[in-house]
C-alpha cells in the first residue's frame, strides 16, 4: 500500500533538483489554492495537467490517486448545491439547487485537481528522502527534517511489524466484527506494535550514538542545481505569476 512508484522514472521532472521542485510546487499550489475564479482555476488545471503529462506517470496509479481526491469532490457536489443557499436557484425536478453552490463545487473540484496534478508532477517525482534533504537546504529546521526522514525510514518496518501481528491474529481465527472484542483486539495489536517500535527506537538510538551520531544526516547524493534546474524554476515561477496575474484581473466567473 505504501509505495513511491511515481518517483521512478527518467523524465525531465525526475531529473530536476528537489529544492527547485519544492519551490515551484509551493508557488503554483499557493496561487491555485487562493484563486477564486473558475476561469483561472480551469487554466491552472490545464497547465498542471500538461506538466503531469510530461512527467509520464503510470496511468493505473494516476487513476487511483485521481479517484481518491475526487470521491471527496463528489461529496461536495452532492451537498453544496442543496445546502449552500444564496440568491439564485435552479429547479431540477423536485430539487431546488443553489447556483452559487454549483459554482462553488466546480471551483473546489478544479482547484483540488489542479493542486493534485501539480503535486504529482513536481513532488511525487522525487523520493521522500531527496525531498527531506531538499527541505533542510531550504531552511526547514533540522530536527523536523530528521523526524521526517527517520519516520519515513521506519515506516515500512513498523507497517511490516503490524502486518505480522495481524497475520498471527488471523491464524488464530480472528475475524473483525462490530464487537467490543474486535476493538480490544485491534487495540492490543496496535499496542504491541507501539511497544515494539518503542523498543526498536531505543536500540536504533543506541546504535547511532555508538557510531558517533551528532544530529547530522549526510546524504550521499548531494545534487547541486544546474542551469537546467534554474531554467525549470524560472518556468514554474513564470506559470504561477501568470496565474496570479490572471486571478487579479476582473473576470466575471
Amino acid at each position, binding site marked *: 500500500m*505504501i*509505495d*513511491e512508484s511515481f518517483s521512478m522514472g527518467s523524465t525531465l521532472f525526475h531529473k530536476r533538483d528537489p529544492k527547485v521542485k519544492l519551490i515551484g510546487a509551493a508557488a503554483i*499550489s499557493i496561487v*491555485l*489554492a*487562493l484563486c*477564486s475564479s473558475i476561469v483561472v*482555476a480551469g487554466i491552472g488545471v490545464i497547465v498542471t495537467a500538461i506538466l503531469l503529462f510530461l512527467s509520464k506517470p503510470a496511468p493505473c496509479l494516476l487513476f487511483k490517486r485521481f479517484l*481518491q481526491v475526487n470521491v*471527496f469532490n463528489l461529496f*461536495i457536489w452532492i*451537498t453544496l448545491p442543496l445546502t*449552500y443557499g444564496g440568491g439564485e436557484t435552479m429547479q431540477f425536478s423536485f430539487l431546488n439547487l443553489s447556483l452559487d*453552490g454549483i459554482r*462553488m463545487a466546480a*471551483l*473546489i*473540484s478544479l*482547484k*483540488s485537481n489542479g*493542486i*493534485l496534478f501539480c*503535486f504529482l508532477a513536481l*513532488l*511525487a517525482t522525487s523520493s*521522500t528522502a531527496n525531498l527531506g534533504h531538499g527541505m533542510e537546504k531550504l531552511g526547514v*529546521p533540522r*530536527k*523536523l527534517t*530528521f*523526524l*521526517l526522514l*527517520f*519516520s*519515513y*525510514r521506519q515506516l515500512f*518496518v*513498523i507497517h511490516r511489524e*503490524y502486518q505480522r501481528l495481524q497475520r498471527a491474529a488471523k491464524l488464530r481465527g480472528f475475524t*473483525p466484527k*462490530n464487537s*467490543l472484542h474486535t*476493538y*480490544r483486539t*485491534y*487495540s*492490543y495489536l*496496535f*499496542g504491541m*506494535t*507501539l511497544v515494539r*517500535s*518503542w*523498543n*526498536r*527506537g*531505543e536500540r536504533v*538510538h543506541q546504535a547511532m550514538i555508538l557510531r558517533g551520531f551528532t*544530529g547530522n544526516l549526510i546524504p550521499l547524493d548531494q545534487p547541486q542545481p544546474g542551469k537546467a534546474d534554474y531554467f525549470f524554476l524560472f518556468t514554474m515561477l513564470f506559470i504561477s505569476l501568470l496565474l496570479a496575474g490572471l486571478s487579479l484581473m476582473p473576470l466575471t466567473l
Partner: protein
Amino acid sequence: MHISEGILTAPVLAGGTVLTIVGTAIGLKKLDYDRIMTVSLLSATFFVASLIHVPIGPGSVHLLLGGLLGLILGWGAFPAIVVALCLQTIFFQYGGMVVLGVNGCIIAGPAVLCGLLFKSMLSGSKKKQMVAGFLAGFCSIFLSAILMACALYFADSGFLQVAGIVLASHIPIMLIEGLITMFVVTFLLKVQPEILSINN
C-alpha cells in the same frame, strides 16, 4: 480527517499555518536529540495507525489515535503528527501542501491539549486510567471535528451545513477512538508503563 486542497480561503489557510508553525516550534524546542529517534518511531506508528481500518456498522473507519500520541509525547506530539501528515500527503495525496498547516492544527492541537489535560489521571487508580484513556481519545476527535467544522465555516459561511454533516459523521469515530485509546492505554500500562511516562 483531512480538509482537501482548494476549499479554504487565504485567512483560514494563513491562520492554520501560523498556529502549526508555532506548535511545531514549541514541540521541537522541547525535544532533544536523545528522544528524537523515539518520536520519529512514534510518528511512523501514527502513520501506520491511519492504515488500520476498524469495522463500524456496515462500513469501516481508520484509526487516528492523536489523543494517545498526545498522552505519550505531550508537546512532542505536535511535530510528530505534522510529520505523519506530511508523509500522508507525499504517499497518498491526502490533504495537501497548502492545507498542511490547517490540517496539522486541526489534528495535532487537540491531541496535545488532551495529552496534557489527561496525563495526570494516568497515575491514579485503574478506573481513572481507563477514563483518562477514553477521554483522551474521545475529546481529541471531538475537538478536531469542531475545529474542522469551524475552519470550513470561517472559509465560507455557505459551508455551514456541510460543517454540520462533518461534525455529525464524526460522532461514531469519537466513540471508537475513545474505546481503542482506552484499551491501548491499559495495555501499555500493563506491558511497558515507561512509554506513558516519557515526560516525567
